[in-house]
């Protein structure tokens, strides 16, 4: 019976992994890519439904404590699956336009998702490491999809080299922690932890590895080039699903492995990193002329806001971070989706902001949606991005971190400038030359509309996920 329970706990991951195998096999036998696409969407949808049901189930651990069951992990799985599903839905049109629509893309994507699902529930440093690697290796491949373009090759190589380097840090950290405590299970490590140099060094290196994956300053150098060189819809996937999974793993590490502030108060470290990340991310984003690069830097800044919630170190802070990730997934996939739409109508240069002049009036629904997503990213009410920021900053204020919150809102005010700038080009400038945009595909348009509606809906009515979230966190929070 235990086995059944264990399997059931990781059922979404299993479904996704099996679907990945099937897709790869189909591709090997040259079946059509549409079948692969259908299987991918179906598997993700089923996994998402199961994942949502698990939100309301019991909490505990599974696989002899290797993974957590229910609670934060269950929410993390939903985040990953929502992000992945929408990215897949908007990928088809875009990738076929760019001649990249192969079955193996979906195979890699599904395997990466399996890694993320493991990462979001990892309760053991070994699970953490294996999941992270499963995810990363597949992402390296996806980053290099545009292998014939210079920026594609650059993205893959840069991501791979720096990623391998950071994995080294992470693994070294795990080794040191094991050396210091003799344990790899997060809660066992916490129980056996003592403030020795060995343990602190191990935990510090582990955090460096995590900071790299969430693109916190000063470990962010890879982000802009990788984001720019990756096909846009897959950039959205990296920026949302991968980030959500890593942040959930981060929360699990903080709450289960490093809950004891007497050994070392990591919130100070997180605070400092959060401040640098928000400031640097926003300042560099201000100077970007390429929309994709701008969104890459803005995603760095968003990692900074998320860390404000982590720095608060309270149940409200963690649930704020989870809500923010949910908001971030909706609006960021949406924004990248519209950019992908504009891009595939023309060529690669079409991500330059200058080429956006007058676009807003061309296909009105797309312009309006991009505006909604950008306003939401900027944190303007009544959109979901505002609610996310509100929870995160409110938690920081409540925890007494008022200076941090003030720096956060000022950084966020500066960020408004570069989001507005896109809209300045969309609507306020005249188009350079006459051209017509192709109409968006039905499924593509419908998924973006769903995202836009959710962005507005959860901004006006922030009740549903939040009530659940607070209960999740408080019922689950150890100690």
């Amino acid at each position, binding site marked *: 019976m235990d086995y059944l329970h264990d399997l059931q706990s990781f059922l979404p991951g299993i479904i996704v992994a099996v679907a990945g195998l099937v897709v790869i096999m189909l591709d090997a036998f040259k079946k059509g890519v549409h079948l692969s696409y259908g299987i991918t969407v179906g598997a993700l949808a089923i996994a998402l439904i199961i994942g949502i049901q698990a939100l309301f189930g019991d909490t505990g651990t599974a696989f002899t404590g290797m993974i957590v069951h229910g609670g934060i992990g269950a929410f993390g799985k939903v985040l990953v699956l929502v992000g992945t599903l929408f990215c897949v839905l908007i990928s088809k049109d875009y990738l076929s336009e760019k001649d990249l629509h192969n079955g193996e893309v979906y195979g890699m994507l599904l395997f990466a998702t399996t890694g993320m699902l493991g990462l979001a529930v990892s309760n053991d440093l070994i699970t953490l490491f294996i999941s992270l690697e499963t995810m990363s290796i597949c992402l390296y491949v996806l980053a290099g999809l545009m292998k014939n373009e210079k920026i594609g090759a650059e993205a893959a190589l840069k991501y791979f080299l720096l990623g391998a380097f950071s994995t080294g840090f992470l693994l070294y950290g795990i080794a040191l922690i094991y050396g210091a405590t003799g344990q790899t299970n997060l809660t066992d490590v916490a129980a056996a932890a003592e403030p020795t140099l060995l343990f602190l060094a191990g935990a510090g290196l582990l955090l460096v590895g995590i900071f790299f994956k969430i693109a916190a300053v000063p470990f962010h150098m890879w982000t802009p080039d990788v984001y720019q060189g990756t096909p846009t819809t897959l950039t959205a996937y990296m920026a949302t699903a991968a980030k959500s999974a890593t942040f959930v793993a981060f929360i699990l590490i903080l709450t289960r492995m490093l809950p004891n502030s007497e050994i070392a108060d990591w919130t100070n470290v997180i605070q400092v990193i959060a401040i640098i990340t928000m400031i640097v991310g926003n300042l560099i984003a201000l100077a970007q002329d390429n929309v994709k690069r701008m969104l890459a830097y803005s995603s760095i800044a968003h990692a900074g806001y998320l860390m404000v919630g982590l720095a608060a170190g309270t149940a409200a802070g963690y649930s704020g971070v989870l809500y923010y990730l949910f908001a971030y997934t909706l609006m960021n996939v949406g924004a990248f989706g519209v950019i992908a739409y504009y891009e595939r109508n023309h060529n690669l240069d079409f991500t330059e902001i200058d080429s956006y002049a007058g676009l807003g*009036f061309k296909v*009105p629904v797309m312009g309006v949606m991009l505006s909604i997503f950008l*306003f939401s990213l900027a944190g*303007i*009410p*009544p959109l979901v991005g*505002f609610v996310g920021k*509100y929870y995160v*900053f*409110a938690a920081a*204020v*409540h925890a007494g971190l*008022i200076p941090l*919150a*003030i720096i956060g*809102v*000022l950084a*966020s*005010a500066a960020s*408004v*400038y570069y989001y*507005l*700038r896109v*809209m*300045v080009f969309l*609507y*306020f*400038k005249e188009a350079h030359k006459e051209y017509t945009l192709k109409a968006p595909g039905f499924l593509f348009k419908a998924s973006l509309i769903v995202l836009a509606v959710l962005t507005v809906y959860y901004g006006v009515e*922030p*009740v549903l996920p*939040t*009530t659940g979230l*607070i209960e999740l966190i408080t019922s689950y929070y150890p100690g």
Partner: protein
Amino acid sequence: MEYLLNITIYLPLLGVVAFLFIRGDEAVKWVSLAVTTITFFLSLPLLFNFDVANSAIPQYVTEGTPIFLGMDIKYLVGLDGLSMLLFMLTTLFGPIVILASWSSIKKSLIGYYSMLLILQTASLGVFASLDLVVFYVFFELGLIPMYFLIGIWGGSDKIRATIKFFIYTLVGSLLMLIALIYLGYNAGAATGVYDFTSDWRFISGPDYTIGLVEQTWLFLAFALAFCIKVPLFPFHTWLPYAHTEAPTAGSVVLAAIMLKLGTYGLVRVCLPVFPNAFMEFAPLMAVLAVIGIIYGALVAMVQKDVKKLVAYSSVSHLGFVVLGIFAFNTMAVQGAIIQMINHGLSTGALFLIVGMIYDRRHTRMISDFGGIAKKMPVFAVMFMIATLASIGLPGLNGFIGEFLILNGAFISELYANHAYAVISAIGVILAAAYMLWMYQRVMFGPITKKENESLIDLNGREIALLVPLVIFMVWIGIRPVDFTKYSEEWVNSFITMSEEKSVAVIENTDPGEIPNWTARLYGIESGEQNNLLAQQD
């Protein structure tokens, strides 16, 4: 009635939804006009059924459930003496701005009218909301449509103007958000039930007081946000840009309604919630207000562009409102509230008039006009009445507000110095100078430009949208009590309560517990504050 209030707030938004199904420029215009007109008529019963004797208590209250346990953030709207007239002013201006844009806007009409309607809902929502988080959401929501109104349909330097407007306002309101969160947790702890509350009725009520140190910081954060919005000198630099570049309807809404959000916030939040800080910073704010009055008037005097002149005159007029608010007695605060309405009517009318002449001549430079009165007699009359109302001629509305404010400032215990009122009175004289000089150069004298020979007088639509404003200018001027009665009870009771609260805070403060600067600021050791309050009672 509660439903009626909600319908009034959201009906304009419903119009935007209707645009999803309606195509055709004419249809869009008529739907917008219908929606805003219905909104106005629906809001009338709210005014007629308003219980004037109990205006300190919010009426027509709709109360939602807290969004989750422990966090008392909820949908809470209602009207009281402070918001009633401003709410009505907003519904009145709804159809007027639609009519004003009727023939002058030719580019993407659906977008334009959607923006106006969203702006209408946002403005109504700010005045009606009684939960500070809901207030904040509506406060910010107004930024988005205004950003597009200026940016898409604005003048030549529109991009710079709209970005400056947006960022300026946002910086202030984000700091306010942090203060709001802190205040919410502080107030929540005081309820004993919740962790967080943003219910204005509790926060401004007699049972909740805030320590002096917190009050100072919170007051400064809130006041900064509101002063940027007013805008008070030296935060006014966004205003002339935004006004000049905005399309006529944008300028009108900005002047008549959005600028009021700042002064409204000062009375709604700063006065009852942070009474000690409010009183202590009153002279400083008054100095800024007086500088604004004189500076705005002097700069207005040298403007070559009529619209810029009216924009700077706004800086001057809103200085009066701030001066009245911080004088902190019934007369001055009453004057400030009625002056908000007056400024909305007269400056709104002036922007409409500038828009009308701009539509005909495509210029706003004073030097391009001259002798127009002969060609456009009806226009001349309307322009004259609006000009005189703006100056504050007795018998018209401007006089009532300015008189009450100056009188109240003169006797104000907080200012304790007649200089504020005296110097401000110079501002009234300057106003007469720059407005009448401008009027004379535009309307009288020989016709020097041949384009002005062929000007046609106002058409029916233009007269129809100015007449209601003129009626109210005269009405307020002759029978001000019909309007001041709404807020009288509100002002009396909140001033009394704020005084009591401030005394209670001082009494409950242990001088050993607070830092030195706070003690010095509030004069705890010397007991000056207590003496001052004793005199006022």
